[in-house]
């Protein structure tokens, strides 16, 4: 479980967070949605202890993120930020291998190598593992990054807009991989998403963030209502029943 108690942060003049009180249960996928500048990414970054809080406390799996040693947290929670540009020329396998850093400090054991292979295969990167990251397409690279954080084998996985810059096919594949990771590997995945329909279809819970506050929190069925979405996103939204569940129409 992830618990935020009275968390506040003034990030810059546009974004100020809180006070936020929130409990995200373990298991499944929780999607953070909301308009630009609502503070979704800031919240996620704070949970992943990459950004300190001004006030309040955040606990992940019972550990306070501001007082627990970073190297211990690295075995509990992993986070992938939105912008990932590495100057370092690494192969896919080397990158994924860094997910084992909290355990082996870089001296990969045979067991580590097996685990790395497992996650490379899990994200269908088997044929690409010896390629350099700069030789991959955007979708492949994004999969490699996700493989790295999954390879960290943390109970909690935080992903900031992993569908950014992915086309339709790759977006769907990515969400299926994450869904599988949540189901088969028992991970708790918190993900910032822009597309409410992706959130509705793949997430178990949706948390709508607006103006630095939690506007709504519930199951996709509860969130997918005309009034609620129109209010949160400040644009007219109509929810209809599609062939595979509810769909938000806002075009």
């Amino acid at each position: 479980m992830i618990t935020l108690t009275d968390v506040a942060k003034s990030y810059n003049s546009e974004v100020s967070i809180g006070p936020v009180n929130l409990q995200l249960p373990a298991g499944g996928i929780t999607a953070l949605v909301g308009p630009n500048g609502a503070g979704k990414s800031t919240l996620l970054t704070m949970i992943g202890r990459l950004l300190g809080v001004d006030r309040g406390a955040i606990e992940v799996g019972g550990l306070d993120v501001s007082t627990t040693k970073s190297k211990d947290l690295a075995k509990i929670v992993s986070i992938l930020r939105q912008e990932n540009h590495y100057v370092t020329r690494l192969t896919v396998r080397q990158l994924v291998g860094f997910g084992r850093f909290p355990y082996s400090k870089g001296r990969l054991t045979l067991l580590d190598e097996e685990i790395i292979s497992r996650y490379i295969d899990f994200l269908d990167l088997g044929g690409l593992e010896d390629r350099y990251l700069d030789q991959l397409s955007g979708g492949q690279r994004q999969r490699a990054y996700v493989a790295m954080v999954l390879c960290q084998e943390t109970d909690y996985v935080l992903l900031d807009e992993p569908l950014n810059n992915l086309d339709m096919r790759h977006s769907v594949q990515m969400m299926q991989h994450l869904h599988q990771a949540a189901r088969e590997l028992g991970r708790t995945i918190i993900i910032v998403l822009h597309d409410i329909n992706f959130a509705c279809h793949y997430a178990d819970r949706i948390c709508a963030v607006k103006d630095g506050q939690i506007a709504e929190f519930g199951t996709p069925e509860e969130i997918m209502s005309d009034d609620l979405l129109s209010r949160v996103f400040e644009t007219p939204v109509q929810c209809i029943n599609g062939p595979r569940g509810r769909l938000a129409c806002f075009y």
Partner: protein
Amino acid sequence: MTPPRAAVSTTATRPEHRFKGRLFDWKLLLGVVGVAGLLMLSLTTGVYDVFGAGDGGQMFAITRIPRTIALVLAGAAMAMSGLVMQLLTQNRFVEPTTTGTTEWAGLGLLTVMIIFPTASIIGRMTGAVIAAFIGTMVFFLFLRRVSLRSSLIVPIVGIMLGAVVGSISTFIALQTDTLQNLGVWFAGSFTSVLRGQYELLWIVALIAVAVFLVADRLTVAGLGEDVATNVGLNYNRIMLLGTGLIAVATGVVTVVVGNLPFLGLIVPNIVSMFRGDDLRSNLPWVCLLGIAIVTVCDLIARTIIMPFEVPVSVILGIVGAVVFIFLLLRQRRRA
């Protein structure tokens, strides 16, 4: 945690080659042999006939052997410093001479020489190392402040910083009538490397061991603060450690040999082009290539106007500038 079902079966059929590349292979051996050949050439090159003259053996021990050892240590040190610096700044175009580190080391050296004219070489070295550390930290802190990620702005800022510090050194030198000495120190040259004056360079060998030990941490730091923190690494601590290693290596080389421009820039880039950036297995290659380039340049410097010599930094500057421009153009094409 339950492993994904599909994965387990495929892992079993995978060949061993999936595992990380080995450190030593026949290619590295070939490289070692090649560099050894260059070093033999360096040992036998010179005006004095060490094999014919009566005191040849003595001369060989006093000048040729120290000079060749110095080439090895200084070449490896500067190439390695460049590599570490490029990782820490996440920028391919930085190295101790494009970030002002060398200039700071020079300023430190000069300051010690003026305040304590009788300072031993260890005292001078300490001054240079401390100044190099401060200077590199100033540069890194500046980078964090302005969070410049543009690959070309960063070295330009560094070169500007270096120019300012260099001017201060020149000013101080003018005031104290040591301008000529300053010129001699800064022009990197192995001419004056004699027995009894170069042994400090062995510190560099320790630095190489240290870099090898923290190689993985440095590589993780090279992926940025977020990734480093995510895997539980103390980013600031590794930055300090890396800066310290660079400062010591650069400081020692500056005091004993002088300024060796571009070496730290071109060597890691060339190695990265062929081998990617796995620091630990690259380190022997970076050292070898650094030694090879500095040795070739020194051989040219020694023979081009025989029986006189030009400072090796002149040759390095020309070679380095050409490779630098090539790298720039190549990056433009890829971007």
